[in-house]
């Protein structure tokens, strides 16, 4: 019978480092490998984490940007460039200069 505390500690380490044991620190790995050899429950926990991480990796896989987005970005950039060379030009109707979302000052300072 394996101490339940060991499983709890293993679970905690799984959440800390993920299911790829190659990425774990060496000093953590030796006792974990011993636990995995002797405990079916530990192996099951590892399998479940591997499965979850595989699903996280493929979540929304193959997602594509909408058609025409690249052209819209380039048009916006050309308008910005025009404004740079002629700041007295007509106002920017689409808000490309300020950003489509309003251009909050706080965000500008974070960039």
């Amino acid at each position: 019978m394996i101490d339940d505390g060991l499983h709890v500690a293993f679970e905690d380490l799984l959440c800390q480092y993920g299911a790829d044991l190659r990425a774990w620190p060496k000093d953590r790995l030796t006792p974990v490998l011993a636990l995995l050899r002797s405990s079916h429950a530990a192996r099951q926990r590892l399998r479940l984490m591997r499965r979850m991480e595989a699903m996280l990796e493929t979540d929304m896989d193959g997602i594509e940007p909408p058609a025409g987005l690249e052209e819209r970005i380039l048009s916006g950039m050309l308008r910005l460039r025009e404004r740079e060379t002629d700041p007295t030009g007509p106002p920017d109707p689409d808000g490309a200069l300020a950003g489509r979302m309003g251009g909050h000052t706080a965000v500008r300072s974070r960039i």
Partner: protein
Amino acid sequence: MAELSALCGPPSSSRIAGLRVHEETMLEAESDEALMLAVQDGNVQAYRLIVRRYLKRIYAVARRILPHDADAEDVVQDTFLRVWSHRHNWSPGAARFTTWLHRIAINRCIDYRRRPLEDRLDDAAEPVDERPQTDQSIHDRQLHAALAKARRRLPTSQQIALALYYNEGMTGVEVAAVMGLSQSAAEALLKRARQQLRVVFARSAIRAQDAFDDR
């Protein structure tokens, strides 16, 4: 020189287009950093290549953090326009270009998530998958759906850390750099996200398995 230009004649529009294609082909082999230096000099072709190189990835990051296609599209458009308007803020020694680009994108996502609810689109229903399904694929789809739902309910910072780590393939150090956190803080975000998702995932796996066994 005058003889040469007399021989060549004035540049025709097809020659100019040809030169543009040639320039773009030459630039394609350049690193992000070299392209950004060209963008800083106002080179439109270099900017176009940067957009083309990263549009899909940045859109995918934004879409994983934001609930709707339209939100992600807005954020991506805004992100790339900021690359242009803030191009002189980037310097090759300070941060890798991809770190800088992702940082702009996630800051825009955070900003978008902070907007009042009434400014955002209403929650749209998930599209229904009408492909024929086997028992195993139903089982997997149920798990996938439960996990995706739980993921969307995580705090924004945890969703960002997951997207960068699992979908952008970044290391903990890179996630930390993009998010402006220490490595330990970024890893703590990942750990908390895994802990919460694991509870939901284990519960859903048992439920789906029970339903599978009852058939």
